[in-house]
């Protein structure tokens, strides 16, 4: 009978103690001034033991937790490998960019040379350039231009002179008889 009562008391205590679970965890993690908990612990050996157990586990946990992140170490030449990979990854775009820079500069130079030639074409290309319309018109006028003395060539005078009998000749054309006819 006494044993049954003790069991009942223990069960009741455990049921009542579940409400202290969170308080015990907090007390295990941080120093606490939870006076209600302190009063409970003074009268509850199970909870006092549980708190000591939690504190011990927390210390062990804190000692081991860093190993979760610090347990592994990078290989000896890790940094060198990373740098090599980083620079190799960068080199390709750099080379491409330099190629574009060179192409751009070449284009600029080509444009500069072309602009220079265009600006100085009068000096280099005047001989070969085609005549303008005005020049052609002037040349045609010159072709048809006649000196004042040339007017005599079209005037009937020269023809008159040409047709006029020479000295000792007559205006009347008299056909000359050939010797046989005479």
């Amino acid at each position: 009978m006494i044993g049954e009562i003790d069991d009942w008391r223990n069960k009741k205590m455990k049921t009542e103690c579940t409400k202290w679970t969170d308080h015990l965890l907090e007390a295990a993690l941080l120093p606490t001034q939870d006076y209600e908990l302190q009063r409970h612990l003074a009268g509850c050996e199970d909870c006092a033991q549980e708190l000591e157990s939690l504190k011990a586990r927390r210390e062990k946990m804190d000692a081991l937790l860093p190993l979760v992140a610090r347990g592994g170490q990078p290989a000896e030449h890790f940094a060198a490998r990373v740098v090599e990979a980083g620079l190799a990854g960068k080199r390709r775009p750099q080379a491409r960019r330099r190629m574009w820079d060179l192409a751009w500069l070449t284009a600029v130079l080509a444009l500069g040379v072309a602009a220079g030639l265009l600006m100085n074409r009068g000096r280099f290309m005047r001989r070969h350039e085609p005549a303008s319309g005005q020049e052609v018109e002037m040349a045609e006028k010159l072709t048809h231009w006649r000196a004042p003395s040339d007017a005599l060539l079209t005037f009937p005078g020269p023809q008159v002179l040409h047709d006029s009998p020479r000295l000792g000749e007559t205006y009347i054309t008299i056909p000359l008889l050939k010797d046989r006819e005479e």
Partner: protein
Amino acid sequence: MGMSQIKNALLGTLRAGTEVEDRDAGFTVRVAENQKRVFQIAYSVLGNAADAEDVAQEAFVRAFQKSALLRDPGKFRAWINRIVFRMALNRLRASRRQLAREDAWQAHRAEDADGERAAENHVMLQRMRTEIANLPERLRCVLLLSLVEEMEPSDVAAALSIPAGTVRSRLHTARKLLLEAMR
């Protein structure tokens, strides 16, 4: 376009070349300064050195390639932390070999086991890692990052883009749940 402009363009190209060299040198220095922490962040998530190295290297290369996006070089530390953590999480989520990785991690830890106490620690560590994996992600992320050396709450906050106060409260909750689970 005059000769002066062409000259300027050539000088610009040469200057750009110098900048590239400076950036390359800067990258080498940054890898040296951050490699340990970056590796640990990846390791804390993935649990084995080989995968952690892969992800850490990938994170550095990506950071280097995108370095032009980083306006403030002083924020490189927070930036690379965030990159490697995200990449490690993505790798973990994408991987269907998580169990195998756990085994690999356990095997790695077993190499350090020496004596009864070490074996006990090893078992507890295994169990702890399993319980951490079961934590809600928002708590797990904070806990894992907080375990990395040189990671202050402000660093964790920057990596996860949450306030430092939230980091502290989540860390406390994570530790409490873990302690409860480890009973």
